[in-house]
């Protein structure tokens, strides 16, 4: 599909180019229905390649990470073997099922293997069962068949995905499709992780994702903060420069920048110290080519807002990269985790410049976060049965459409 860019062509609506989405109000009950949530678990999350984390969390052989993935009803143990390969396992001992790496929350470390703290069974980094305490006391036990239960695991551009099916319907490459082939060109290796924010939020995961996948709210919610850097006189509502919706469920929207915005003094300082990029300062992007982003080559471009289906936001620009996970916990609880990456810097000046972006971002994020529980609590009343979605919210519309498609698919 070839969609013309449309900041100027504002009479042209993106939504009309995807007639399958329709233009009707979208039911809100899917955000409060426990039955729908269970279907999301069984028919969507348990059957989809899910982006779990980046491989920089396991930089060396022997590194391991544990993620508690409530929506899969499991604890996932990722380990990088001596062969350098990252494998995923259910973090559950083959003896009686205790967590091999115990505890809740995220765990990480470096080890030669794993010892279950209950009765001492040991596993190597490849998941093989190495030793059973007092093995002779068991009956016909075959260690070679009792390795940690693997989970399908694939890596794309340093992004680790897992798939909980015994036999996934498709390869990771197929699941990422054209979106993956295009975004693969983005130079992720030029960015470093600067911090991680997380919180438990009492809202449905889709309510959380929605607030971060549309930019219609920028003019109001970020009216004091980000709006001036993004929305301009010629594009006051921040109409999208480009939209692509992919059959696999991923989506991509290119957001505008206000090139005549004059950044505040500390931001200008940061631009000077970092030699360019800043969250609050965008320059003519037709002057610089960024592989895997700004597909239309728009000059007034700020960043691409991608959603890796179903539950992760990925922002890419030359100023910053963000991943935000919205992990479903229950119908009205979400575990939110944001990772901020900035252009790698080894100088003190660059480090100080990075701090400016970090400070700017977390204020904007907190503006977004405040809406989530405010929305969810009142939704429970059932008073609002439908959401009205404008063209700028096409990503939200696509999101509900794609989730529903999975829920209603034949078994």
């Amino acid at each position, binding site marked *: 599909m070839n969609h013309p860019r449309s900041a100027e062509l504002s009479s042209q609506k993106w939504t009309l180019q995807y007639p399958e989405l329709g233009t009707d109000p979208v039911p809100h009950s899917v955000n409060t229905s426990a039955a729908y949530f269970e279907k999301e678990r069984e028919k969507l999350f348990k059957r989809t390649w899910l982006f779990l984390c980046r491989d920089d969390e396991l930089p060396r052989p022997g590194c391991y990470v544990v993620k508690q993935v409530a929506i899969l009803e499991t604890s996932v143990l990722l380990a990088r073997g001596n062969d350098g390969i990252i494998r995923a396992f259910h973090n559950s001992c083959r003896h009686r099922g205790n967590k091999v790496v115990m505890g809740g929350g995220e765990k990480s470390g470096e080890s030669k293997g794993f010892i279950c703290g209950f009765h001492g069974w040991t596993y190597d980094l490849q998941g093989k069962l190495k030793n059973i305490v007092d093995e002779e006391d068991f009956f016909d036990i075959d260690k070679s068949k009792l390795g940690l239960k693997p989970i399908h695991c694939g890596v794309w551009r340093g992004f680790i995905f897992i798939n909980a099916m015994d036999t996934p319907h498709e390869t990771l490459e197929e699941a990422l499709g054209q979106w993956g082939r295009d975004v693969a060109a983005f130079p992720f290796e030029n960015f470093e992780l600067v911090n*991680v*924010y997380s919180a438990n939020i009492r809202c449905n995961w889709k309510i959380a994702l929605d607030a971060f996948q549309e930019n219609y709210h920028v003019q109001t919610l970020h009216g004091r903060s980000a709006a001036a850097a993004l929305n301009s006189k010629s594009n006051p509502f921040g109409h999208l420069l480009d939209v692509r919706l992919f059959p696999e469920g991923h989506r991509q929207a290119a957001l505008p920048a206000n090139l005549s915005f004059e950044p505040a003094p*500390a931001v200008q*300082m940061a631009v000077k*110290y970092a030699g360019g990029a800043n969250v609050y300062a965008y320059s003519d992007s037709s002057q610089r080519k960024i592989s895997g982003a700004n597909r239309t080559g728009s000059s007034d471009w700020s960043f691409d807002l991608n959603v890796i289906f179903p539950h992760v936001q990925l922002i890419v620009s030359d100023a910053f990269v963000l991943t935000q996970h919205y992990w479903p916990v229950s119908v009205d609880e979400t575990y939110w985790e944001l990772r901020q990456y900035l252009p790698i810097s080894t100088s*003190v000046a660059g480090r100080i410049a990075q*701090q*400016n972006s970090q400070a700017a971002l977390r204020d904007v994020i*907190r503006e977004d976060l405040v809406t989530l529980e405010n929305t969810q609590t009142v939704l429970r009343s059932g008073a609002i049965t439908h959401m009205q979605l404008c063209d700028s919210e096409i990503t939200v519309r696509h999101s509900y459409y794609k989730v529903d498609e999975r829920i209603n698919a034949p078994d």
Partner: protein
Amino acid sequence: MPTLPKEFADLERFVTAGWALPREHARWKRRVTSSIAEIKDFYETLLPRMDAMVKYLDRHPLSEVPEGDRPLLYLALAFMDVSPSWEVFHAADLPEPVFEIDRMHIVERPYPWELAT
């Protein structure tokens, strides 16, 4: 006892006032619990001094910042953390209602000198 290089002795009062904090989360809390008068004083005093501070600190790469330079670095980072209060919000914190920062768990990267041990 002064903690800053003598060229920056005039900023010592901000170290005394607890701004030279190594951790982002602590600086952030310091910011949102300040009065706007305090923010203004800190911001306006540091703004014209930042170039000199950065030039001084930039004598070494980030991996080799000597111990004696670190309080000055923390002040410079605090300046960036505080800047949106004055430049964007004209208030220490975002206007109500806010998502409380204590609900946000933060994992910060270590400084290179913290990794050495």
